[in-house]
């Protein structure tokens, strides 16, 4: 029963994606909405990214310093390990897990409310492909803006580590700066950016799906919003494992 229901939902998801990935009816209207969505989903999230990244970068530096006591390890290992954690996991996967809470619930509740207040029916009646009209700008907007958010996250996190070194002196600033530059592998940045593109698609499409298919009233919209975040998080973790295996090994 559970498997049949899951397969049914997956089929509905694929159908909705097929409908939404069609050519926009009016390019001008699409670009207007695309820019709006980039602003709403991306630019509006930057304060959250700055705060979270700054503190996580600082925490990483402190915790690594506290846990690396082996005298054989060079002192710059603190900076190096902080950088690797940030590039490989935090700036893409953990950031997207955090953003799925904000962006995913935003998309699911917005589209879900449109569904229960018949605004989507109104679009359909007018002859507009509502799936494409509503979901495509959100998906395209988030996929476009996500790599920039990841880069901001990387820079802010490393700056957080730098700041904690300046304030507390747990590692000298020069050593930290040397650490974050030494043995730098450029591919790790690309790896994070590729992952972020996939996660942006997952967050926007899953949240859009849960919102678009909601039935009932405000309680169901709230539930759909929560389900969208939970499912996005699960899928982000699953895809993270697959991409790490594929791209790093």
């Amino acid at each position: 029963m559970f498997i049949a229901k899951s397969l049914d939902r997956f089929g509905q998801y694929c159908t909705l994606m097929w409908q939404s990935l069609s050519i926009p009816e009016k390019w001008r209207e699409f670009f207007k909405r695309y820019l709006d969505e980039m602003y709403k989903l991306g630019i509006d999230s930057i304060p959250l990214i700055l705060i979270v990244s700054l503190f996580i970068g600082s925490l990483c530096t402190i915790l690594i310093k506290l846990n690396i006591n082996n005298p054989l390890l060079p002192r710059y290992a603190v900076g190096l390990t902080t950088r690797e954690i940030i590039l490989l996991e935090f700036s893409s996967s953990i950031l997207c897990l955090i953003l799925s809470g904000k962006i995913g619930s935003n998309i699911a509740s917005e589209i879900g409310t449109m569904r229960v207040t018949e605004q989507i029916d109104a679009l359909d009646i007018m002859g507009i492909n509502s799936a494409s009209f509503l979901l495509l700008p959100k998906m395209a907007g988030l996929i476009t803006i996500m790599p920039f958010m990841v880069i901001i996250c990387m820079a802010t996190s490393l700056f957080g580590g730098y700041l904690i070194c300046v304030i507390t002196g747990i590692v000298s600033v020069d050593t930290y700066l040397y650490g974050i530059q030494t043995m730098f592998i450029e591919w790790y940045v690309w790896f994070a950016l590729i992952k972020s593109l996939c996660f942006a698609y997952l967050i926007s499409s899953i949240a859009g799906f849960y919102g678009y298919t909601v039935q009932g009233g405000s309680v169901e919209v709230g539930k759909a919003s929560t389900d969208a975040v939970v499912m996005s998080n699960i899928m982000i973790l699953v895809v993270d494992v697959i991409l790490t295996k594929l791209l790093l090994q």
Partner: protein
Amino acid sequence: MIEVKNLKKSFDEDGHRREVLHGITATFYDGKTNLIIGQSGSGKTVLVKNIVGLFKPDEGQVLYDGRDITTMTTAQLKQLRNEIGMLFQGSALFDSETVMGNVIFPLKMFSTLSEEEQLERAQFCIDRVNLTGSEAKYPSELSGGMQKRAAIARAIALNPKYLFCDEPNSGLDPKTSIVIDELLSDITHEYGITTIINTHDMNSVMGIGENIVFVNRGHLGWVGTKDEIYDVDNDELNNFVYATDLFRDVRLYRREHRSPRGK
């Protein structure tokens, strides 16, 4: 003219099929306010959603001037959609747009008018529904009646041939309901639109019902005009019509004035 022929629709409910429409046949005429009436849960909204193509019927035909919506290709359906306007029960205005934004939206999406002409047309529609001065307001800043009028303005922006209204008076006070009814009736006659209004408001029925289709538990219960509805020998319809004291009194008055004793 819209013709509905032997329309059947059922839904899945806990693994069972529940038939909501049991083969309805009806005709809705051009330039007339056609009313679909019936109790809550009788299948009125399902019937309207089947007619406009939001639901696909299990069986039967829906003919828009001879064109069957149930067998149309996507392109044909899209073409037909441009001829349809719809007023939803909750207005369904786009929250993120102003009144002007809502009214101009279908023009932006489908018309070939220049930007200036679009603005002109949208302003005309807003003026027509007496919302002049509210162009920059958002739906949340409007009263229920104003929201309905804004939704009517949006529905008529593309000069539709067919106008559907799902319970246009729900949640409105009697006076505002009359304003909305009169507006719908005037627009229907002015532009010769085939208007289908789904309602259970007897005041609307008596005010603007030129062609009334009574739906009872998914069956066609009765068809007629507002002048015929008082004297019909149909228990189900009478139970619906005379559910309020006001209309019972009207019936009594009419009978008394028709009988020899009354004269």
